Structures are given as structure tokens and as C-alpha cells.
């Protein structure tokens, strides 16, 4: 640990604003870069599951109908 | 056998237009590709000619030279008909000026040999493009909508021209929105059957 106190970490001899701004502006797109495709994958997956349930529901009544 | 296409499928992007198209064209035959708008007549013809290669699967074999005339006339509007017809890279046509003038006279364009193509009417431009049929010795013609923009006399001339070509052992594959141009002489390839 180079810094002595939390305030020193924040201040960084006057460069704190720039350093923290740079890290913040990097963290945001990095999180988005991972989160957005994960969200897309989840959406597609749910769509596929719903599609399968729909097709199952469409075939079931006819199967029952043939039984009766 | 001038053209042999087996199990040809046409895709556009992720969408499949046609699949399992089989077509074999021999000398003396006239084939019309028929089907509703957007079924893929032009796409198939372009695929058969080899203009488009991406998304065309299956086997397409040509036994000899062919002449493809597309929907667009492939004419430079600033050049005269003679200059336009003098060099046709796709079929190695290097006709002499007298041959070109003869062909232009046959399509009823005598007197227009040295005017810029851009100043001619749509029908006249079409006839300049069709004059390529007379200058080529390719046995197979692939024509995309050749009758568009032609008047009655022009249509009759083209029909006679195709008849002559076929009687001499050539073959023609064409698209048209009008059914049965050549009556009993022609065979139809209904693309609706292959549509996906």
C-alpha cells in the first residue's frame, strides 16, 4: 500500500479527479460490455423456451382429441 | 445438354428462397421461369449464369458458352450503340462495325448508330441491348425479362429471333411476367414448387 490514508487515496496529490474519472469511465463500458450480451442471451433463451411451450401446447389438444 | 442444374438452392442472407431446383436444358428447348413476384426468378437466373455466387449452392454446369442479358441493359448512356456493342467482355464479342450496323438495322435502329444511347427511348435502348443476341454465337441464352419496354413489333421480332436460335440448335431460358410467350414450344419451370 503506497497511500497513508483514505483521503490521500482520494486526493492522489491533486491527480485524484483525473485518475478516478478515468477508472469510472472505463468501468461503466466494461460492465455494459459483459452485461448486455448476457441479457441478450437470457432473452433469446427465454424466447426459445416460450416457443417450445407454444408448439407443445399446439400439438397436445389434437393428441387428446384423437384419444376421445 | 447445354445447362445442367442439380439440387440448386438459393439463399438471400439468412432467408432461403428456393431449394432443390433441378433443370436441364438441351438444344432446341425454350424454358420460361414462372412464379409469383419475389419468388426468386431473377435470383435463380443470376445464379444459373454465375453472376451471383454467394448463397447459391448445388451443381450448375454449362456445356458451352452462354449469353446473359440482365434486367439492366449494360449500356453506357454516353456512348453510341456502335461503341457500346463493339466490346462485350462476357462473351468475347469483338464484332466489326459493319456487323454491328447490320445487327442494329435488324432491330430497326438503322440511323441511330452514332447517337448516344442515353438519347434513345427505353424501348430503343432495350433493342440495342438485344442486338447482342445477333452478335453472339453462344448456344445458350439466359434472358431476364427481355420483353420489357418492347412494343408489339419489338416483341414479335424477339420471338422470331428466339425461334431462329432454337431451330439452329440453341436454347433459351428466360423470365417474363407474361405466361406462355411461345405457346406449346416452351416449357415452364414453376418456381412456386421449389419455394421455401
Amino acid at each position, binding site marked *: *500500500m*503506497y*497511500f497513508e490514508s483514505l483521503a490521500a*487515496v482520494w486526493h*492522489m*496529490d*491533486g*491527480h*485524484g479527479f*483525473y*485518475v478516478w*474519472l*478515468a*477508472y469510472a*469511465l*472505463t468501468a461503466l*463500458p*466494461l460492465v455494459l*460490455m*459483459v452485461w448486455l*450480451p*448476457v441479457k*441478450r*442471451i437470457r432473452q*433469446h*433463451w427465454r*424466447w*426459445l*423456451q416460450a*416457443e*417450445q411451450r407454444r408448439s407443445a401446447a399446439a400439438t397436445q389438444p389434437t393428441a387428446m382429441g384423437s384419444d376421445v | 445438354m447445354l445447362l445442367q442444374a442439380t439440387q440448386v438452392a438459393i*439463399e*438471400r*442472407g*439468412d432467408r432461403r428462397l428456393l431449394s432443390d431446383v433441378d433443370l436441364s436444358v438441351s438444344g432446341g428447348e425454350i424454358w420460361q421461369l414462372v412464379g409469383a413476384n419475389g419468388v426468386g426468378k431473377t435470383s435463380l437466373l443470376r445464379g444459373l449464369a454465375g453472376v451471383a455466387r*454467394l*448463397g447459391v449452392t448445388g451443381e450448375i454446369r454449362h456445356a458451352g458458352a452462354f449469353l446473359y442479358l440482365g434486367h439492366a441493359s449494360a449500356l453506357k448512356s454516353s456512348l453510341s450503340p456502335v461503341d457500346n456493342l463493339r466490346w462485350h467482355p462476357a462473351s468475347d464479342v469483338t464484332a466489326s462495325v459493319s456487323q454491328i450496323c447490320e445487327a442494329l438495322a435488324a432491330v430497326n435502329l438503322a440511323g441511330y448508330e452514332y447517337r448516344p444511347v442515353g438519347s434513345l427511348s427505353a424501348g430503343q435502348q432495350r433493342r440495342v441491348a438485344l442486338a447482342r443476341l445477333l452478335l453472339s454465337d453462344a448456344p445458350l441464352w439466359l434472358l431476364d425479362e427481355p420483353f420489357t419496354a418492347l412494343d408489339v413489333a419489338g416483341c414479335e421480332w424477339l420471338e422470331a429471333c428466339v425461334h431462329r436460335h432454337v431451330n439452329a440448335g440453341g436454347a433459351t431460358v428466360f423470365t417474363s411476367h407474361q405466361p406462355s410467350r411461345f405457346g406449346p414450344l416452351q416449357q415452364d419451370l414453376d418456381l412456386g414448387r421449389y419455394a421455401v
Partner: protein
Amino acid sequence: MWAFIHKLGSPPWFFGFSGTLVRWLLPVTVTLLLVGAVWGLLVAPPDFRQGNSYRIIYIHVPAAVVALAGYYVMAFAGAVSLIWRIKMADVTMRAAAPVGAVLTAIALVTGAIWGKPTWGAWWVWDARITSMLILLFLYLGVVALFEAYENKTAAARACAVLSLVGMVNIPIIYKSVDWWYSLHQPASIKFTGESAIDSSMLYPLLLMILAFYCLFALTLLLNMRAELLWTHRDSGWLKQLVGDT
């Protein structure tokens, strides 16, 4: 090796393989990023000339390095797609372009922020920043070209041609920008000088570069999986996979 590449080209196999890989890569990437950031921000000593502002290089340099490498990954996928016509290569190329563009943008923004305390201006036409700007244009060109084509198979081929030409051009661009800069501005403080960097500063930098490579791989795989799920929504293997869960 060849069998492995061949297997990568098959979507069902790739989907399973990438799923396992992602599950490993995600915690590894997050750990590397956090450790590297803490080390670079808090543990490493300040630079004797630039003070603490140099700590920005722990994100700027990795982003710049991986953004450049990402272009080569994209162009390589483009070459594979053109030569062997493997669909997965198209998917890779398409997924790599936006990731690379974002990394380039990060390198540009952090570079600009670093410039303010160092040169007193938000934007200075420094050699590295200028090259990054041009790289960003190259990436945006590929992304925009892909979006402009309606036929996505054709779009992938056009982008492959463009990215290959870009790949040939990139070394020339970087070299010419370097010469241009050194001709016009005698060396002032450079971002990363040729001077030997102390190991106490170097190790966190190497760690962060590794972390960004992992991040690139992770986001690439995630984007590819999302793309595959959609384009193969009618395939049997995917339906079975969904049905099993």
C-alpha cells in the same frame, strides 16, 4: 489441431465449448481486473515525473494493446471466412468489431483524461492518441458497413475484405503517425517511454493487460453465443438443448 479448428466451426460444439469457457473466464477476468486495478491504484509507487496521474496507464495501455490485437483477431476471422467459408468465422468477426471499438474508445477517453494534468489540455495530437483515433474510425467503418448491408452474408464478406485491407494498412498507419509526430514535436513526456519501467510498476501493468485479453475473449464469446442463439433458433440441436433444461 486441425480437428480442433474443424470442431470450432460447428455451432453446436462451439456452443457447448464456449459455455464451459465462459463459466471459467468470467470469475478469472473479474479477479484479474480487480487485483490489477487495486495494485495499480493503491500499491504501485507514483511516477517520479508524472506523479499519480500515470496510474491511468493501467487501463489506457491494456485497452490500447487489446484493441489493436482485436483488429487482428477480426481480420484473421475475416480471412478464414473468405478462404474456407466457415460461418463461425463470420460470427466471430461480427462479434469482435463492437468489442474492439469500445476498447479503442476507452483508450481514447483515458488518454484524453491523462493529457489534462500532463499537458494541460484535454486533447493533444499525441502519436498514440492519434493512432487510436484512426483505429476507432477503422472499427466504426467495419461496424457501419456491416449494418448498411441488408444481406448479412454479403455484409460479412464485405467486412472481411475491408478488415483485411485495414490489417495490411495498420502497421503503415502506426509507423507514419509516429514519424509525423516526431517530426513536428520533439519528444516531450511520452505516455510510455522507452526508458526501463520499474518492475513495481510493470507487474500490475502486465496483469492488467492479461485481464483485458481475458475480458476481450469473454465478451467475444458472449456476443457470439447471443448471435448463435438467435440465428440458429430453428435448428434441432438448439431446440433439444432448450428442451433438456
